[in-house]
């Protein structure tokens, strides 16, 4: 766990905040508590990694509303909802808005911590994916249009000859383009290139190219 990873707790009840902080810190995680949704929104910025523990029933903005606010602002922090009286519609609403978990009070400490760990892992993965996608995008930007075309076709599983005939060039030229693509994309193998293409959503592009 990186030291920057933080568990944000939003609950209007001070005892709850304190006790949660006490519990979560016992597994050496970084905890920040907020007494209302507004206070959280004011101090949080999207770059921070971690997860959010939300009480549903709060004066002012309720937990579910805060969750919807975050979704609306494309802030992808994993959310765990905590509620005193869970009912099905509320749970559905929370899950639909992308809550990672929905925990009913009083809860088992193991359950909560597990859920937090899961949420943090999701967060990390999300962030990895995001940075990978950004890396692939910078590499793709280096390609010439022709190389781009060749890469799309290659990752779609087309043989060099096919590519050569559809582009109206020699197989050798395709060969050369392909080598440059591998180089520029820093791909060690075709499989890696394909993975990158999937990350970058390149697969559908070929059809538009053929058109």
């Amino acid at each position: 766990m990186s030291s920057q990873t933080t568990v944000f707790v939003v609950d209007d009840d001070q005892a709850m905040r304190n006790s949660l902080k006490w519990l979560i810190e016992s597994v050496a995680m970084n905890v920040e508590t907020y007494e209302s949704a507004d206070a959280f929104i004011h101090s949080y910025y999207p770059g921070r990694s971690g997860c959010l523990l939300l009480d549903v029933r709060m004066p002012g903005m309720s937990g579910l509303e805060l969750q919807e606010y975050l979704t609306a602002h494309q802030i992808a922090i994993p959310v765990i909802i905590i509620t005193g009286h869970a009912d099905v519609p509320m749970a559905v609403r929370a899950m639909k808005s992308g809550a990672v978990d929905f925990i009913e009070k009083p809860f088992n400490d193991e359950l909560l911590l597990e859920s937090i760990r899961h949420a943090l892992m999701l967060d990390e993965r999300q962030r990895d994916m995001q940075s990978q996608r950004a890396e692939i995008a910078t590499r793709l930007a280096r390609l010439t249009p022709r190389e781009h075309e060749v890469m799309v076709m290659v990752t779609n599983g087309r043989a060099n000859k096919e590519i050569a005939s559809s582009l109206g060039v020699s197989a050798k030229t395709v060969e050369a383009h392909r080598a440059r693509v591998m180089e520029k994309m820093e791909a060690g193998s075709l499989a890696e290139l394909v993975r990158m293409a999937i990350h970058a959503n390149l697969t559908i592009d070929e059809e538009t190219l053929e058109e």
Partner: protein
Amino acid sequence: MRGITTSLQQSWLARIPLPWISVVVGLLCGLVTWLFLDPILNQRLEKIFQDNLASRLEVRSIETRHRFESFLQEWSSLGHRFAQHWQVVDHLSSSAWEDSLESPIRYNRRRPPAWIESGQLILSSIEPDQVVLLDSDGGPREIFQSEALPFPLERLTDFFSGREEVVMTTIQRKPYLLVWSGIRRTEGFDPAFLMLVVEIDDHFLDESQQAVGDPDTVIALLDSENQELIVSSNRKSVFTTSPLGIWKEAYLVTSQALVGYQGVDQNLLFTTLVSREATMRTMQNILSLAQQDRFIAALVFMAAFSLVFFLISTKISHVLQRISRFGQQALGIEQPVVKRGNQMLLLESWIKAFFRQVIVARDKLRLQQEERLKESEVFKSALFDNSMDAIITLDEQGQVIEVNGTAVRAFGFDREKLLGGRFDEIAIHPDYRAKYRHMLSSCARKSGSNLECRAQSMVAVTGHGEERAIECSVISIHLSQQTVFNVYLRDVTGRKQAEREIASLAKLASENPNPVLRANKRGVIVYANTASKPLLDYWGCERGQTLPRYWQNLVNRSLTAGETEEFEVSFDGQVFSLQLAPIQELDYVNLYARDITQMRNAEMQSRQHQSELVHVCRVSTMGEMSTGLAHELNQPLSAIINFASGCVRRIQSGVGGEAELVDAMAQITVQAERAGEIIKRLRALVGKRPQEHEVVNLNHMVLEVASFIEYEANRHRVEVTLELSKESLPVKVDLVQIEQVLLNLVRNAIDAMKVVTSGDRKLLLKTKRLDDSRVEAIVMDNGPGMAPDTCEHLFDAFFSTKETGMGMGLPISKKIIEAHYGELSVETSVGEGAIFHVVIPTDPALELPGF
């Protein structure tokens, strides 16, 4: 009036006073007449003058000729006389005469003959030129020559015819007068003749007229052969030996023959010349004189007439002025009576305006009259139609001529049917027809007393066949042609009814089950009905006696203040409400008492019941409360778990410091205490209460609920309607719980209707029996209703559409109803409001406890 003014301004004529106009007109008329008549008169005068002149000229010429001829005659006589003179006769008798001589003896002035005496032969200063004595043969013997002749004498003697005569002749263009006279000689002697020769010159002519002729008349001798004037009386103006033609312009010429004085070969005419100029002058003088006369006459005439006109018009003007002033004053019409100016024109235009005004006024008057007539007609017909009585007008035969509106309205008579029909047969009850006819006939005869025709009680049959008690009156109206009757019917059914009602009203107070009393200002009870007995007993007094002191004061106070006051009296377990109503004008106070014992009891029960309800209200809000409490309880419990778990983990991993752990433990204690507090509060809220089932009327419960929420409903402007089953709906239930359910439903409904426009919020509470074993209460609102998916979860716990609700009301209500083996259901859709059905089982055997 404006019209007059304008026309006056336009007509300058109207500004000149009438007298002046008449003067001018008079003068003008005179002038015109003068100019017209003057030339005519002149002409006529001239013609008369000319005619006159012609005849006068003739006369004058004849006169002058006569004078001339008589002058000649005088010469003839002169000659004759001389011839007879003795000297001449003597001379002839002498011998001398006998001695004839060869040549005649000539004498002259220096040697005159003896036979002639000087001055003997002169006529009018004229002497003959030659005097000649002739012998019987005509030969001259002696000649006396005063003037020598320019020719020989023989030429003259040639004219001698041998007898006495007078002859005129011309010799050498000179006229001469020759006179022969016989001289008488003694017998025996030859006769001898005397001849006188006179030259006819201007002097002769002048003398011939014997100074009678006027200077403008000239006489002359005309040689007719040569048409030449030989000699004229005035040789200065008319020259001799001049042709006649040249004088015709200047003179009027008349020529006449001198018969008997002329020789044979001579043709001398006697001519009279009258100066034209002179006659013309005369005529002019006469004409101008006549003109002057006429002019003066005309002037005088004109002046006189103009004066008369002037005077008359002045008078007329005065009169007109008075008339118009009188008109103005009498008619009060403002109009321009101008003091100066032509009163006639003014009056004329004024009269025009006056007539116009009269016509306008007449029209206006007629309109007004018509209007008034119409109004009076309308008024009368309104009076007639809306009279309190039905009025039927009959002719002498008793047939209906006219019917008023009241007859149609109040008696339902068909107007068409009545008109022309016999009224008694249509409208009077058969039993009373004889009476009616008698009334009519006595009224017609005028013999019956007035009373017989007035207010006779009868029974009328209305158009609908109903019988009505009436009072019938008849009057006769004598018109010029006929007599008609007005029959007045007054419906006294109402009055009789009213009389009966008044009579029964009098009994109202005595029949009143509540005490009614009346006290005068001294506190004496003047009236008390039967029901007042308990009160009178309590006060220890009777009717006609004085009230207790305390009540006397109250009566007085109420009377003085004039205000109704209310008091309560309770005795022997009875409660009376006593109202003191003062009637100031009569100095009485009415006391209306009401036994309110039962009401008070009911109120007390109700209050008791209400407190129970309030209590259960709290209990059942426990449903909602418990949700809140559960949450509240969750908080400390979760916190406790968290702290505890945190401690365990720290201790297991050996991380936590002691102080830190102790602090957390302390937190656990705090939270546990907090939970305890919450539970205490919960217990305090919910008192223990066993369920009690009793038989009650569902209607009664609904009524009670309705009265409970009345205030709230009013506050939210919800119109509450009750449709309660007429039969009682007995159910055996826990009254408080069921009322709580109903209350909950009603409150929900009111809440739901908050979104509806204020004023359109309607709440219906209804009860009915479904069948023998079920009754139903319905709560219906016109709120927004609910969607089906909302409806599904309506009875789930913690489901709420309200922001503040906990979603426990309906689930609990449902639980309660189900506990009563009943059903709670809803039918609703969006926009249609909601209807909640509460169905509760009943048992036909159930009986409501008596009240």
